[in-house]
């Protein structure tokens, strides 16, 4: 069928489900999506250029604001990059604290995604649960950093705040309360026959697709590609503790949900071990003083909730970077839509789009479905969500 007879469906630039501005043009043949075109640039803030005008120390607070959800991932990768130029080894205590912050962030980010995915499927109970259990995680952040988001924990040579014995006990207590609730949530999602019906076989990405697009994180691991920066190129405390990389083979949306949910349990395991080590080695430095960054190239990466965050920093010996390149995981995960959406129905396209947990910065988006022939709106964002939720209800009705 020629493109002129296909219905053209713009999703974006603003969309109530996902947080940020982007614009997908879906070309549909009846219910089936045949082609996806993507546009962005609605919120480009020129952060790389801004960083070149800041000192190495100040850059932490700029890159922390790249992402509102995983606000520690960028400082983490930047610290790995900039510390590799002079070859600094941070104190052991700082390594454990860094890992704790990184893993807490993974838990809250994954819960956020599970909640949104649940809402999108018409499972508002999942949404309520996931976001309710995300709150104690944010409380934990508040205990150790003073903030629910944008923690400002990282600095060159270590971290800015210690976690004391009393805080360790508080955190362990919250984790004890959280673990059974996580088990319940994970069981409820993974064993639900309707969620199976909605997510299995939808938006499949093969291992070859992952390689072609350079996709990372849970998106890659759900397609059986065992990559995880924490294991492949260990940083912080990840080579000092016992944990495992979670993978799934199917490559569909369900597999991505499975990987994220099971990673929550791994993260709890990692945090517990880090806290134990902190309590055991009570005391010690949390940062070392770094006078200057010599000329050279620093390349660092870190495993964010959505996948590898990559930072490239070039120094000429002055107090600021001459070049700072940032690659967020969504930059390589989003183009996989072209593979995961084509051939899906419109009501599945939205969850396939959401499956890689796309992240740009933080605003709203909107979906509208237009009639290609006369340009009149057929569906708005709410209708598109309703369409997805209705499909779940239909499945439940048929059962």
């Amino acid at each position: 069928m020629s493109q002129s007879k296909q219905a053209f469906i713009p999703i974006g630039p603003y969309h109530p489900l996902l947080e940020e501005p982007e614009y997908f043009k879906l070309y549909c043949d009846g219910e089936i999506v045949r082609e996806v075109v993507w546009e962005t640039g609605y919120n480009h803030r020129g952060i790389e250029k801004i960083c070149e005008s800041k000192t190495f120390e100040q850059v932490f607070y700029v890159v922390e604001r790249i992402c509102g959800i995983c606000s520690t991932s960028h400082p983490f990768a930047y610290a790995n990059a900039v510390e590799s130029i002079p070859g600094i080894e941070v104190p052991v205590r700082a390594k454990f604290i860094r890992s704790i912050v990184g893993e807490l962030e993974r838990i809250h980010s994954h819960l956020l995604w599970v909640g949104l995915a649940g809402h999108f499927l018409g499972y508002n109970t999942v949404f309520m649960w996931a976001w309710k259990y995300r709150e104690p995680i944010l409380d934990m952040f508040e205990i150790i950093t003073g903030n629910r988001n944008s923690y400002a924990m990282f600095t060159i040579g270590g971290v800015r705040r210690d976690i004391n014995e009393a805080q360790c006990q508080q955190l362990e207590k919250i984790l004890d309360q959280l673990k059974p609730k996580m088990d319940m949530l994970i069981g409820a999602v993974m064993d639900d026959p309707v969620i199976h019906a909605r997510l299995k076989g939808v938006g499949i990405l093969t291992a070859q697709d992952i390689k072609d697009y350079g996709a990372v994180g849970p998106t890659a691991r759900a397609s059986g590609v065992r990559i995880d920066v924490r294991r492949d190129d260990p940083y912080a405390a990840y080579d000092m503790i016992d944990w495992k990389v979670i993978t799934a083979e199917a490559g569909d949306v369900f597999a991505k949900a499975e990987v994220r949910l099971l990673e929550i349990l791994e993260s709890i395991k990692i945090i517990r071990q880090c806290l134990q080590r902190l309590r055991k080695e009570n005391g010690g430095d949390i940062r070392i003083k770094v006078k200057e960054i010599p000329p050279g190239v620093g390349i660092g990466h870190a495993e964010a909730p959505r996948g590898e965050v990559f930072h490239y920093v070039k120094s000429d010996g002055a107090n600021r970077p001459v070049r700072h390149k940032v690659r967020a995981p969504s930059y390589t995960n989003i183009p996989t839509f072209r593979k995961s959406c084509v051939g899906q129905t419109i009501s599945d396209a939205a969850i396939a789009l959401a499956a890689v947990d796309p992240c740009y910065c933080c605003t709203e988006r909107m979906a509208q479905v237009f009639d290609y022939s006369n340009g009149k709106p057929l569906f708005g964002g709410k209708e598109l969500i309703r369409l997805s939720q209705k499909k779940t209800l239909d499945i439940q009705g048929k059962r």
Partner: protein
Amino acid sequence: MIMNIEDLIRIIKEKFPKQISGTEIINPQRLLLGIDKKDLFKISGFLFHDLDCRYIIVSAMDAKEGFELVYHFSHDKSGIIINLDVVIPHKQPEIESLVSLIPGIEWIEREIHDFLGIDFPNHPNLQRLFLAESWEEGNYPYRRKAE
């Protein structure tokens, strides 16, 4: 067998004895190889297919000696990041597109085209990625100001 950085250098140099103009071991996990732009496609293909490296991203900057492009690949089996450093002259800012080799590289080539005005011959869709359509033609925000 777990490869270390010397093994990787040996394998790459055996395949491309003359094409690698500079080898810098930044640290045991980071390798920087200086290459000429005419060899980029072949060497990238070798890394991507034969060594099963993962494409990460391309960093581009406007340096004094020309536009410097660093192609980052990750050898995930060993965790080593291999960086191909290519410098292209200011007067002729173009370098072959790798989209036919690595489909995921499409966006970053468009981004570099937006911000630095570098052309990528054989790119299937070299339209603007981040800059608005109304942005002035020939004004490249990441280029250094003429001194």
